[in-house]
């Protein structure tokens, strides 16, 4: 029986899915046409042009369809059509409009779509600019689009589901009795909501930039495939070099924004955790960086052409591998970032193998043709050191990939290896010598000349930098009590790289060409100085040492990084007096006010103070999700987040009043009752009733109050419970003292015995409010950002310069 459901909006989803199918078919057509055109072109046949035209038309159709998919999905989320699983799963009514865009990349389908968009845009640019390379390059780009579009296809082929369609309806995805009711939508009032961690401005901008970075690694790959295919080993550099620089710049920017997001909004305390997903974006970047340098060597000397092909092409392959790692669910527990399996791991693996096969076959069949200078680089030449640097980067990539892939090794070999217990320390230890080598090379390689240079020259040129950096490293290392000589070595090499590049910048200031490269090298060195100091000197200051006298206890306490702050009860932390002032809620966040007061050690007065408001969402699904707040100073950052808060519900659900106790008084004799913190004195009966009760007693037979003095340290108050007999009915009115937390009412007055029976209830003491928080001091973290930004700007300048350089060459 077919049910008709009420209130569903099926059209946008049907349009969306139709567009997905269209984009998939158009990309297949584009791939076939461009491939056909490439083969015909190679044979010099004129029919290639008509195939190329067909390819273009198909690709343009594909672009339009891809944008249409995005518009349909946006329309569904924006209008809160929760009958769609994607909208229900990733958004909710209270979600601010500007975060709708983040809903796109919370799910796998949306992020695949984002990737497809960038490939489409880049493909469009390439159709316009690739000229003679157009057909083979676009053939590779189209193939990538076939792969990516199929990831959101959601169509069954011979019983195998290809891709996951973002336009699925909730009732199609989930099985529940409710979906057999035609009016089920009336019960689905709100969506599941966006992960609170993604509700951050960085999350609006970081994924698009990062995915543009990923997408752009395809271009050097596609060009090099085209070169090998066409067997034309000239004039490709003018395309590949600027695009490699572009890719490095954007991917670098994307990774940097990811770091900024992690630092601003995650509570692990830092910008880099060597998480598999972070590694997955770093490795392609490092490969492209190595490839860039071998490419420059090739351009200048004709050497290391083969390593250029290998490194640049593996950049894109590693992007695919990373996608497989993070989206196949294979990482399981080892990453917080990883997506769970949507049953697409097989598909991902197939695409990975297809691209590896294409690249491998082309390289294998053309290997001996790739032009290579017969001369060998001299040991003191710049090209030798640049090549050596590229190899060092390759080893770095190898190590990172090897450790990140541990779950893969377990699957392949049936081992039960786990990532190193302290993964961060492991990576840092292995990558440190690599950083040292790279930094030294950024200096020495640049002052060495191409072809041949004398050792003496290199030494003369670098001696000032050597002496200066040694001095700086010693002073700073000593001043900061570096325990570890490796850190001092890294500091020395970072300073060396910095100073020598500054020197080069000054020497070559008139020559624009080297501005981009020196700036990026300076940026790299500054970044490493920042990374080193901010991580080595990073200090958890939220350690409660009150009441601890001896060293042993101090050391033991060093591991205890969370501190409990009672409300309004200050604690001393590293020269700050820290007080938790209270919280306030702005749905769905709770903001915790933490006041920092810098105490002058001499005068004991407050030098300055500020309030940090780390916030948290108490997410029903994920528990407490803490968002840190950071105070930025020029030299350091003070980073604070809550790790645990008391259960407010338990507090509010606690019974307000304890069980009342009964007391008997004599109507005439003053008497005293001892309560937990209060002394209660019965001062006898009075007819002087509280004002608000007077009206209620008119016409009564009896209206009396008992005067009870509440004695507290801060002063006395009088409470008057009232006893009224009216129309032969007894009314009692209780008296409440909210400050004292006391409630008294009269049960009975017995005129015969002159006794009065009174009930006294005390308020349950409110559980005191507190937070458990962690505070970290990051010194000189601004150098990290400064270095990264400088590097990205440098890469951008280099790209612009290279483009102009090749244009000039064409005109000459």
């Amino acid at each position, binding site marked *: 029986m077919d049910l008709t459901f009420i209130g569903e909006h099926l059209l946008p989803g049907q349009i969306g899915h139709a567009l997905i199918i269209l984009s998939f078919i158009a990309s297949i057509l584009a791939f076939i046409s461009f491939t056909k055109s490439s083969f015909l072109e190679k044979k010099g046949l004129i029919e290639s042009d008509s195939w190329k035209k067909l390819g273009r038309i198909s690709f343009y159709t594909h672009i339009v369809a891809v944008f249409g998919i995005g518009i349909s999905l946006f329309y569904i989320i924006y209008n809160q059509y929760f009958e769609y699983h994607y909208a229900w799963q990733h958004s909710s009514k209270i979600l601010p409009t500007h975060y709708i865009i983040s809903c796109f990349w919370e799910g796998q389908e949306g992020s695949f779509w984002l990737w497809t968009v960038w490939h489409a845009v880049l493909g469009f640019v390439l159709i316009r600019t690739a000229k003679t390379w157009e057909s083979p390059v676009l053939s590779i780009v189209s193939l990538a689009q076939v792969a990516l579009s199929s990831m959101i296809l959601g169509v069954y082929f011979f019983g195998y589901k290809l891709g996951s369609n973002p336009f699925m309806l909730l009732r199609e995805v989930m099985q529940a009795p409710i979906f057999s009711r035609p009016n089920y939508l009336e019960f689905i009032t709100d969506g599941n909501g966006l992960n609170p961690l993604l509700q951050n401005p960085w999350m609006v901008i970081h994924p698009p930039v990062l995915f543009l970075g990923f997408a752009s690694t395809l271009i050097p790959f596609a060009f090099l495939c085209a070169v090998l295919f066409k067997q034309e080993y000239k004039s490709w550099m003018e395309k590949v070099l600027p695009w490699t620089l572009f890719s490095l710049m954007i991917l670098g920017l994307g990774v940097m924004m990811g770091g900024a997001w992690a630092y601003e909004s995650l509570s692990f305390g830092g910008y880099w955790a060597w998480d598999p997903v972070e590694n997955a974006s770093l490795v392609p970047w490092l490969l492209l960086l190595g490839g860039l340098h071998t490419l420059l060597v090739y351009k200048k000397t004709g050497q290391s052409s083969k390593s250029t092909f290998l490194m640049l092409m593996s950049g894109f392959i590693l992007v695919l591998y990373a996608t497989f790692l993070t989206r196949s669910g294979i990482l399981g527990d080892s990453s917080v970032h990883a997506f769970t399996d949507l049953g697409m791991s097989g598909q991902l693996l197939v695409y990975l193998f297809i691209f590896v096969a294409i690249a491998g076959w082309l390289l294998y069949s053309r290997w001996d043709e790739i032009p290579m200078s017969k001369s060998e680089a001299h040991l003191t030449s710049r090209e030798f050191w640049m090549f050596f640097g590229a*190899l060092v980067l390759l080893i770095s990539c190898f190590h990172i990939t090897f450790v990140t892939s541990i779950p893969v090794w377990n699957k392949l070999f049936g081992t039960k290896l786990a990532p190193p217990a302290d993964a961060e320390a*492991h990576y840092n230890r292995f990558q440190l010598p690599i950083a040292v080598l790279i930094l030294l090379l950024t200096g020495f390689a640049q002052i060495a000349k191409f072809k041949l240079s004398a050792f003496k020259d290199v030494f003369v040129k670098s001696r000032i930098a050597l002496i200066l950096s040694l001095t700086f490293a010693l002073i700073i290392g000593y001043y900061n009590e570096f325990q570890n000589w490796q850190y001092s070595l890294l500091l020395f090499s970072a300073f060396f790289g910095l100073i020598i590049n500054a020197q080069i910048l000054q020497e070559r200031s008139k020559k624009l060409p080297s501005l981009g490269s020196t700036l990026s090298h300076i940026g790299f060195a500054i970044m490493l100085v920042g990374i080193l100091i901010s991580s080595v000197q990073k200090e958890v200051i939220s350690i409660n040492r009150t009441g601890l006298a001896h060293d042993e206890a101090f050391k033991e306490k060093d591991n205890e*990084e969370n501190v409990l702050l009672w409300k309004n009860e200050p604690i001393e932390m590293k020269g700050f007096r820290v007080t938790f002032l209270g919280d306030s809620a702005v749905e769905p966040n709770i903001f915790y006010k933490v006041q920092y007061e810098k105490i002058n050690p001499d005068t004991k007065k407050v030098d300055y103070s500020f309030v940090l408001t780390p916030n948290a969402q108490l997410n029903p699904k994920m528990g407490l999700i803490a968002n840190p707040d950071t105070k930025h100073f020029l030299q350091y950052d003070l980073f604070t987040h809550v790790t645990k808060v008391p259960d407010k519900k338990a507090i509010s659900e606690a019974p307000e009043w304890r069980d009342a106790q009964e007391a008997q008084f004599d109507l005439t004799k003053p008497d005293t009752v001892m309560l937990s913190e209060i002394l209660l004195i019965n001062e006898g009966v009075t007819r002087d009733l509280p004002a608000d009760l007077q009206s209620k007693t008119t016409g009564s037979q009896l209206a009396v109050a008992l005067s009870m003095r509440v004695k507290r340290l801060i002063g006395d108050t009088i409470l008057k419970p009232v006893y009224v007999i009216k129309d032969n009915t007894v009314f009692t009115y209780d008296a409440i003292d909210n400050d004292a937390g006391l409630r008294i009412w009269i049960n009975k007055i017995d005129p015969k015995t002159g006794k009065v029976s009174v009930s006294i209830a005390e308020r349950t003491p409110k559980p005191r409010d507190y937070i458990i928080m962690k505070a970290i001091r990051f010194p000189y973290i601004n150098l990290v950002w400064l270095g990264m930004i400088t590097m990205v700007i440098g890469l951008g300048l280099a790209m612009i310069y290279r483009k102009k350089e090749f244009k000039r060459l064409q005109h000459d």
Partner: protein
Amino acid sequence: MKRTHLVLIILIATAIGVIIATLGDASSYETFQIASDNPKKEFHVVGKLVQKEQMEYNPEVDANKFSFFMQDNNGKTSKVIYKGTKPDHFEHSEQVVIIGKMKDESFHASKILTKCPSKYVDKEGINPVKDSTKY
């Protein structure tokens, strides 16, 4: 050609060196038994929270001490002491991975990873498929 070969040999040698050094550093998924046999080494132990045993966390006394009992996949139960705050929804975890070492009859964990079932069941009893992402 000669130098190319040399470079290749050096690269392969370094790669093997990296693999060996890394494997020496890598931890492994083991049981409490192995962990107590090698008290100096850090291990990953996978298991389940023992619900009927007492979980202890008194932030008022010590915000950095949380202890519970876990049963590993071989059925052996051990007390686990974690220096840190109690993870939210810990009671509901399906599976617990602890990283640390055995010391004085109890397992001292430096890290706890929990896997929680997607228990977002709303009023209508819709139980969604596992949440697809944790970015």
